[in-house]
């Protein structure tokens, strides 16, 4: 009995260590476009008003500053002639609430964790060569 308990304890200890290592060794997202195999990075599309919508997705441990870093970098790439303005309208943490678990012979505490973080905003370029929107939209509809 003692042997079984000590083995179980060792197993739990190892699992906990591995889990903790998983948290500690979380690596920062690599800058690049999101794709079928790449869940984290940026994604953008041109808008009818001449601007671009840029979305940045990172793992739950990432900070708002890291998200902004990707956004600003992508904005600079989209606007080689310079930025007219940007507008970040969404900075969101997708949270998961785990109910308190039933732990045999003990108490369990409910927890919350971030499954992912997202930032989305608009990018408007200064007049000049624009890599993603070749057409020019004149405000007011006049052309």
């Amino acid at each position, binding site marked *: 009995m003692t042997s079984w308990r000590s083995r179980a304890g060792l197993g739990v200890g190892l699992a906990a260590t591995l889990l903790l290592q998983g948290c500690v060794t979380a690596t920062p997202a690599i800058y690049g476009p999101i794709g079928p195999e790449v869940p984290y990075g940026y994604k953008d599309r041109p808008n009818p008003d001449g601007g671009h919508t840029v979305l940045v997705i990172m793992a739950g441990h990432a900070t708002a500053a890291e998200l902004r870093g990707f956004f600003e970098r992508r904005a600079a790439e989209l606007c080689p002639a310079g930025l007219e303005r940007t*507008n*970040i*309208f*969404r900075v969101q943490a997708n949270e998961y609430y785990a*109910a308190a678990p039933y732990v045999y012979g003990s*108490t*369990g*505490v*409910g927890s919350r964790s971030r499954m992912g973080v997202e930032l989305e905003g608009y990018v408007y370029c200064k007049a000049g060569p624009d890599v993603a929107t070749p057409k020019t939209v004149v405000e007011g509809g006049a052309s």
Partner: protein
Amino acid sequence: MRKVLAPLLCLSMAACATVEPVPAARPLSQASIATMGPTKLSVTGNETGVAKAWFYTEVNGGGAGLVGAIAGAIAAAIINAAPSARAHKQANEVAEVQTVETLNTGLVAELKEEAAAGLSGPGVTFPNVVLTYKSATPGALDDTVEVVTSYTLSEDSSVLRIVAVATYNSAAIPYKTPYTFTKAVPKSETKGPLYRNTFTYYSIPLPVPTLTPELRERLIANIRESAMDASGALPLEDTAEYRTMQREIELANDDKLTPNETSLFLTREWLSDNGAMIKAEVQRAQDFVARYLILDINRTAIPSLTGEDELLETATDQRTVRRLGKGYEAGSYVSSAANVISFATYGNTVAIAKSTVTYIKGIKAAAPKAAK
């Protein structure tokens, strides 16, 4: 046993796999719009006021038997005492400057104004805008567009979020899904309102303070002040209040400013100048809800799960209004402040002001008299 379990497992898995998702928004069809014409609009009286979000930590002591269950309940009470007390205190303070009554009458006024401007137009119009408290008049109203609202201060009090959900039910015109399904039509798509959409407004976020030694001192002073009784005395040692205060001070002394701690500073900012900031945000949110509800009720485009967001409006302060294009929320409207810089979370529970609860009780108590 296996013979029973295996089919059950298959059935449960199949049930999960066959539900085909559709957006929550339900636009009206042209035929429904023509049938409805002038329609009654009812603002469902909000009964929570500006609620304060906080996170309730659940504790399960059941694993240790009855003693464990009791210990778990006690542990939950201790863990949650401080954040709950803070959230309720803040909800009480906010309700002093922004009452539930003014929230409701304000939305009715905005909708009346917006509806009056569109009365001569074709399609669905709202000649009659009323306020209905569900506590007094429970149940869905037939042939009436109903608007349900929630006003929530985020956990750190940096953002006020206002959500309005509009629905229209009619016994004469049952809902018929516009979507095609590869298998059977999901049960959820065979019933429910003929029209439904959501309008969400996020206030301008208040900047979250950085933790400095000075701020930590202010936080501890605030905790002590909150723990004082009416005569200004701190709780006696060996009391639950004293232990709660000590635990809060311990937490305040770490190097992290939690959203709950941050809210102590930011809620005060909302309250300054007799709540001018919160009142301005509520009015702007209600104007957004009124304008876009009246536009959307006559819009027939069916949202899809895979569309793109549309930018509908950019105000002079760069606030934007978007119609979401994909996922469950497709078709819904979001008004967002410009240049958001940090996360705002809304926990898993809310605190409601005492004055709000009392006000709603009064409405409920008066209901039978009014009906006589």
